[in-house]
């Protein structure tokens, strides 16, 4: 009985470790920043006007909003491509998304500034664009991968293409789509750090501030938090 | 000569070879047959030390094969397997030339040898610049045979080399191989599970089961071993009929012809005829009559030899 629980937990150990480390860091940072300050001389009093938990929340907000919007668009695009059965549309969408992915996230964020100004908005736009590729690609591949026999059965039962899509093909593609969402989330958590350079909130703020003022404590505060967050979310979403 | 004594090999709990003794004379084509898992491949692979044995010794060219450095041993022995394993990044020429190049032959000698082998196996010289993925299964197989023969080894090891080829091409390759063997007279150890292929190609047949040798003899002489149930089952109750495929009409008439007609075909004709007599014309246009008894008599003579 005990070994079964232990065995079930085993693959999740790393995830738990990351989670614990992350929470400890985020919520406990203020308590141990003095101790850290011994090794990393910095101006403790200046350490982030905004506390880590707040920054983490901001960061998550940016990531989740942009990714959700991307999920919506990708689902619609993917379903549209599938319904029209158009190879050309598919290659067009994938082609454009591929090109978007070649452009580094920092560049897309920087380029969104002329359109939306500084602050959170350009980051939201950039992350939204960036998440569309992995998610839409997976939606399309997932839908394509539905076994023809199953599609036939659905047709035979008398479903319209739309019903088939919603009731059969989409549910069957779920694992693939979820994988795409996971990839997008992890990428976006990383990319959101750069948002601080254009005035957005999030865990990038102390990092940038730390770089600019040569303050290792600030850097540490933000970096450890975001690295743990990235590692945690990568493992947790399985 | 290859002398194998007391060869044993375990794979974990399973006994693959059980104190096997075998003597393979020079210039003979010895075919190992048996069901899957009988140990024939293990036996083959232990000759060039591709697998290590637990007990026993194998003497090749007068010395225990363990005393040779493995690479040297393998270069002296030709090796041809079912999947051919041609190097995909080398041309046909480069594939065949691998061992001669390792042995540091000079290029003119290599070129001659390669062309000779291509002609021998019936491949056009234009194929020399092709890459393996451009060849058909049968062609690749033949290149494999060329490669095995390239450095003129005395011994050739072949493990189901014609297995991956379609039946029609297979017959062609088998006949081609038989002719090559007639000309080169190499010591060949051949593994197959196809009884007909074995009967066609073998100078000596070795039937194996569960790591033991049940019978070792010329195909015609295998009648002695037919007492053993398994041998009879494996070779087939129609074994004598299969044997007829080995013998051409030219051997029967004791003449120097190049007819491809086998006694097997004659048997077929006999079965169809209403008189029980088949007439054949020899090279001097003389007519001979063949009856069922003649075939039986012939086989018995061959057995005695």
């Amino acid at each position: 009985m005990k070994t079964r629980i232990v065995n079930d937990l085993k693959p999740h150990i790393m995830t738990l470790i990351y989670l614990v480390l992350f929470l400890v860091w985020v919520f406990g940072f203020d308590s141990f920043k003095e101790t850290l300050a011994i090794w990393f001389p910095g101006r403790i009093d200046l350490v982030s006007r905004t506390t880590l938990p707040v920054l983490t929340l901001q960061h998550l907000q940016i990531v989740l909003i942009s990714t959700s919007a991307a999920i919506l668009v990708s689902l619609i695009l993917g379903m549209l491509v599938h319904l029209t059965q158009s190879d050309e549309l598919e290659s067009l969408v994938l082609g454009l998304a591929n090109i978007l992915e070649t452009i580094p996230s920092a560049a897309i964020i920087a380029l969104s500034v002329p359109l939306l100004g500084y602050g959170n908005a350009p980051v939201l736009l950039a992350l939204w664009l960036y998440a569309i590729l992995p998610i839409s690609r997976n939606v399309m591949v997932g839908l394509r991968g539905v076994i023809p026999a199953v599609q036939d059965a659905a047709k035979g039962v008398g479903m319209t293409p739309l019903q088939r899509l919603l009731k059969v093909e989409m549910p069957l593609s779920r694992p693939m789509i979820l994988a795409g969402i996971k990839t997008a989330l992890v990428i976006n958590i990383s990319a959101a750090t750069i948002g601080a350079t254009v005035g957005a909130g999030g865990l990038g703020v102390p990092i940038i501030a730390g770089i600019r003022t040569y303050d290792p404590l600030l850097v540490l505060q933000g970096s450890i938090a975001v690295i743990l967050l990235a590692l945690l979310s990568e493992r947790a979403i399985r | 000569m290859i002398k194998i004594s007391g060869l044993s090999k375990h794979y974990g709990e399973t006994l693959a070879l059980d104190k096997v003794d075998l003597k393979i004379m020079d210039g003979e084509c010895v075919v190992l047959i048996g069901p899957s898992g009988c140990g024939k491949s293990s036996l083959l692979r232990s000759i060039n030390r591709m697998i290590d044995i637990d007990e026993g010794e194998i003497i090749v060219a007068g010395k225990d094969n363990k005393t040779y450095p493995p690479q040297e041993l393998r270069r002296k022995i030709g090796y041809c397997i079912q999947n051919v394993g041609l190097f995909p990044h080398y041309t046909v020429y480069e594939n065949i030339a691998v061992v001669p190049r390792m042995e540091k032959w000079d290029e003119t000698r290599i070129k001659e040898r390669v062309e000779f082998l291509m002609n021998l196996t019936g491949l056009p010289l234009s194929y020399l610049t092709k890459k393996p993925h451009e060849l058909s299964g049968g062609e690749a197989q033949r290149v494999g045979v060329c490669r095995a023969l390239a450095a003129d080894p005395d011994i050739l090891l072949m493990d189901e080399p014609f297995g991956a080829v379609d039946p029609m091409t297979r017959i062609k390759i088998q006949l081609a191989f038989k002719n090559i063997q007639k000309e080169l007279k190499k010591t060949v150890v051949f593994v197959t599970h196809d009884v007909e292929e074995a009967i066609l190609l073998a100078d000596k047949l070795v039937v194996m089961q569960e790591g033991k040798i049940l019978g070792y003899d010329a195909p015609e002489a295998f009648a002695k071993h037919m007492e053993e149930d398994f041998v009879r089952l494996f070779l087939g109750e129609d074994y004598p009929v299969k044997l007829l495929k080995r013998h051409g009409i030219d051997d029967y008439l004791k003449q120097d012809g190049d007819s491809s007609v086998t006694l097997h075909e004659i048997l077929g004709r006999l079965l169809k005829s209403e008189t029980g007599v088949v007439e054949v014309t020899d090279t001097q246009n003389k007519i001979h009559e063949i009856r069922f008894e003649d075939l039986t008599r012939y086989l018995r003579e061959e057995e005695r030899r």
Partner: protein
Amino acid sequence: MKTGRITTAAGSFLTLFALTLLPWGEFKINRVARGIPIQAMGFLGWAMWTTSIVVLLLIIAVIRWKPRFFNAILSWILLFLPSLGLILLSRYIPDGVDFDPKVARISLGIGFYLFYVGILLLLSKTAYPKLKIFLSFLFILAFAGNMDALGLVREYRNIEETFLRELSRHLTLALFSAMAAILPGILLGYAAMRYPKAREWIFGFVHVFQVAPTLSLLALMMIPLTALSKAFPFLADLGIKGIGFAPAFIVLFLYSLLPITANTYAGLKQTDPAVLENAVALGMSPRQTLINVWFPLTLPSIFAGIRTAMTQNVGNTILAGLVGGGGMGALIFLGLSQSALDLVLLGTIPVVVMALILDAVFEVVEVGTVRKLGVDYDQNLRVE
């Protein structure tokens, strides 16, 4: 052209839409002023504008009804249009505005971008699409001398030397950090194959650098480097300090490890066992099998890994600009801090173009070497 209907339709729509309804740029009396939007009709003038619309409609008609003609001749003409548009745009002079011609500038707007995208879409379904697209870009560069009033051009002229210096720095940093990772990456990939128990550790280690945000790694790398350079001053003289190229190089190096390791591992894993068996049976020593069989057969995969690492790095090197490592990132972040968005553009476009060109070059070289090997190479094998 039956295939490509949607793309050409999209392209046609975009070009027309941009020409009629969208602002092509903004007129700014100085670097930081608010811009006055410029419509296509504005900088073209009434007559030219109507002519352009008509010409565009004609072109679209030709595409629809005489696609072969379009493909052969007309499409080559299309690729000049963006440059032409830019030249005309840069000549725009607004009415009733007081400005100093040496300081005022015109920034590009969404109209131009969408027009260009439209043209690219139209070109993409003709013969030699990549060549045409590349040429269209080349022409813009070539005629940049005639586009003086464009903000982009002005920024470039201001910092021409710096620009070129940072451009080469960017490329050097990106490429050399990837090259440094080649040998370790191959060794790690080989180790992962040879020692299956170590595999998880190796990949776990290498993977962390891909998941962790580059910025955070970069920032973290500064800390030990600063300490080191303080402890050993000679390092600082060599240029290895907490800021500058050192932290960027190290982080980019670590980042390049995963694609190379993963691809090497995948390539080694799929070497045909029959080929290996034969190599041994023919009498090759382990060293000879390594050189004559393993290596040539794994080469395509390793190559794919290097390609991924390098193209990735070109993008990531932007962040080096934040830590004093120079490169296009320095321009981008400078522009961001000064709200000089043309400068941001000046920094961003070269990075994107470099990444695309690099990828194309790799494609050409890859096809060339793979053809030499004659191994059936599946594009989808690339592990990213």
